[in-house]
């Protein structure tokens, strides 16, 4: 329980409208899109960097945990306050401070929704490349804290590749700023890399300078279906292996395709064992050439049907369907676990075979979708947590999936982050010295361990 004194301090800082402490309010900040939940003691909505600084000073003094929260769409439990304390909500610090396409950057507050940045840039012919499935809801603060990715990160890279500079409040309440509005800046440590993916354990992001890109002149989108999943995966490695880098290349197995079709009714081929949603962008002539090469490669792998989205509306429908994949799985069973192990792209066929094999052995429903072009797999297990025996199998299956990925030269997470979901598996990919190095950094900047405690570090 929070002391009355601290609660009063919070009210003094942000006003009583900015502090929530009733049970029915707190219940709404206990979760993200992951399955674990934990109630905070209080929720506070800062309006400025100064508010954040004062809150952290007060929390530090009282030794109370503080967990940052954007829109709560992460799928690893990162904003779940497992040690209670304060949840700091950023959805109201949502101003776009500056749009400067001449110098190719935007300055935003952490609560700005990813899609709102896209909307602000569109009239200038620019865009912000990272496009997580949650982009219409998720905030940029959360995107940075989780180092979010998305389909087109295959070609463009993930969030860390677009963070030019940050303003961060440390646990002590001190405000630090690093990076700049320059696309090239090698002054000192690259601290933005440290904070991208830190999941709120090192500091609270209060402002960000992001690199933006001119919109490509042409976009082409293909939907290709295959008779078996193995050829689908092989087509992916063949395309990437031949030096073509599409903007996005999404693999969906039959189960995923059917789940999406049930929800969206797009007329996708329900019988296809595997499918690829491929998007290329760039100069029109180059797209023509790449498209031809891609068609060649998928045909070599026995593509059954190749369809191109004829209009922007059609393209948007395909992507809406793809983005809804996580949600549609929720239809199948009460609980859904989505993981995002990543392997070198040449290992994609082997990884998919392994996942299916694990699913069969444990008698589990596993759908496979993947940002296949960069080896980022999203096996999704639909299960029921109240069925203890089944849940045990789910946990064992996931452990095996992690082990298999690492064996193939892969890693735990391509874009979702570690949160509560994967912290136990960190030793699979980091030796003791490396984990200890992370702990030393954490200890140095947050000696009181108040920032998002109970997570991976």
């Amino acid at each position, binding site marked *: 329980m929070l002391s009355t004194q601290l609660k009063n301090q919070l009210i003094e800082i942000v006003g009583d409208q900015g502090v929530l402490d009733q049970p*029915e309010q707190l*219940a709404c900040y206990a979760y993200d899109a992951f399955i674990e939940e934990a109630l905070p003691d209080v929720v506070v909505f800062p309006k400025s960097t100064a508010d954040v600084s004062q809150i952290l000073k007060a929390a530090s003094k009282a030794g109370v945990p503080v967990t940052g929260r954007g829109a709560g769409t992460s799928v690893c439990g990162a904003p779940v306050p497992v040690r209670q304390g304060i949840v700091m909500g950023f959805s109201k610090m949502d101003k776009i401070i500056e749009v400067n396409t001449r110098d190719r950057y935007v300055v935003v507050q952490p609560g700005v929704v990813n899609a709102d940045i896209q909307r602000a840039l569109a009239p200038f012919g620019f865009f912000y490349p990272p496009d997580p499935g949650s982009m219409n809801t998720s905030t940029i603060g959360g995107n940075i804290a989780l180092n979010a990715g998305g389909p087109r990160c295959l070609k463009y890279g993930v969030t860390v590749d677009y963070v030019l500079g940050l303003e961060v409040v440390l646990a002590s309440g001190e405000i630090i700023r690093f990076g700049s509005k320059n696309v090239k800046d090698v002054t000192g440590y690259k601290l933005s890399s440290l904070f991208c993916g830190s999941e709120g354990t090192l500091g609270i992001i209060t402002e960000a300078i992001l690199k933006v890109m001119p919109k490509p002149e042409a976009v082409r989108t293909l939907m290709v279906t295959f008779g078996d999943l193995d050829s689908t995966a092989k087509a992916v490695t063949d395309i990437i292996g031949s030096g073509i880098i599409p903007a996005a290349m999404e693999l969906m197995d039959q189960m995923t395709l059917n789940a999406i079709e049930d929800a969206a009714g797009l007329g996708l081929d329900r019988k296809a064992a595997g499918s690829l949603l491929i998007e290329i962008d760039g100069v029109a002539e180059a797209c023509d050439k790449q498209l031809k090469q891609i068609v060649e490669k998928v045909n070599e792998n026995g593509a059954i049907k190749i369809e191109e989205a004829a209009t922007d509306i059609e393209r948007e429908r395909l992507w809406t369907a793809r983005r809804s994949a996580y949600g549609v799985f*929720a239809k199948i069973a009460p609980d859904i676990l989505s993981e995002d192990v990543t392997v070198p792209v040449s290992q994609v066929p082997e990884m998919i075979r392994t996942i299916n094999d694990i699913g069969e052995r444990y008698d589990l429903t596993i759908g496979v979708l993947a940002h296949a072009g960069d080896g980022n797999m999203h096996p999704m297990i639909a299960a029921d947590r109240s069925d203890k025996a089944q849940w045990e199998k789910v946990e064992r299956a996931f452990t095996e999936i992690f082990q298999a990925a690492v064996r193939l030269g892969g890693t735990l997470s391509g874009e979702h982050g570690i949160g509560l979901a994967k912290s136990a598996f960190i030793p699979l990919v980091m030796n003791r010295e490396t984990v200890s190095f992370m702990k030393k950094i954490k200890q140095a900047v947050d000696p009181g361990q108040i920032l998002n405690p109970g997570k991976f570090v």
Partner: protein
Amino acid sequence: MKQGLQNCGKCGLCLSACPVYGILKEEQVSPRAKLQLIKSHDNKSLESTQGLKEIVSRCLMCGSCAAACPAGIDHYSKFMEMRKQMVADHGESPAIKSMIYLLGREYRLKFGTGLAKTGQKMIPDALARSFKLGNIPIKNFPTLNPKPFRTQQEVIVPAAGDPVGSVIYFTGCATNYLYEDAGKATIGVLQHMGYQVIIPEKQCCCSVPMLFHGAQDQAMSNIRANIEALDPGDVEAIIVDCSTCGEALENEYPKLMEQGDDHAAATQIASKVTHIFSFVNDHMDLLTFDTAGDNPSTVTYHAPCHTRNNSQGHLAVESILKQLPNTDYRPSPDRDQCCGGGGTFFYEHPQVAGEMMAQKLTSVRNMEVDYWVTDCPVCRLNLAGNLEPQDTMQVVHPITFLYNALKA
């Protein structure tokens, strides 16, 4: 198949669809949070409190969350059940209670609106100028129909010329008591097309306002009366000019009657319910327009949430407006943004509703149009009610606009 609470994966896609979350930016008002609260309340881990009722009430019942939900959850029914529970636990405000009382019996409503009309005339100007009901200034409220619309009509209105068929017209309360122009236009257009229009005498409030405020028991007698009154026989369609009434007849009645004897009748009615614009869109060949004149009217459209989320009527409205002669249709960039009316939402949560409205007003003013059309009476009341004296556009039902474009 609609899904239950346990299938919410908490993915958060509903947050971007919810107009209330868009303004307040607090998780607890989001559809995802409301499902979570209902779940916690159901499994007894959360007590029923006035605060819980307040959160549950911060909802337009617009259905945008359900339309966006990839897991196919029926938010609508869940929210309605929860509202009922909350009213049972904590009561309802006197204003809402009297609304339910009036809507529950047609004679009360008739009497009540009669009184209100006298009242409207008696409100001193100074008072009317400075007071607001919800986010709408009193002086901007529409005057009630001189006589209830249905009492001015024959039960069977013959087609103009050779009849091609007949339809039933469910007028809804708004047309009956407030916006008779929409009713006259609906009948006029249907007659022009060659339809005989049947207006059953015993029809009454569709019950949605009562259902939204947890008064399910009071609603049931209306629903039964309507099921009896609307027996479709061999009519081609049951026409509605309000998508909320349409939604109730099409989706809620069969659901609520699932266990009752009236289920078959409710399902039969549901299969015939058609938005007036969907009906017109399917029969455009039956209409002749006045093509004289060279000074086109400029018009834009506000798509009500219930039209967007429950029927495809908004697409029909837009497609027809684009085709009309002497009409310069200007699509609005925020056509699909909620205006904040939401039944009684504008009254219960004026500040949130006001912010939603402000965005719409700015964009419509930039469009410089003669008409701002919308096919929902609450949207219409809200849009028109928030205009300033210097705003020259007229807010009408699109059917009135269409009727005026016909060749006499």
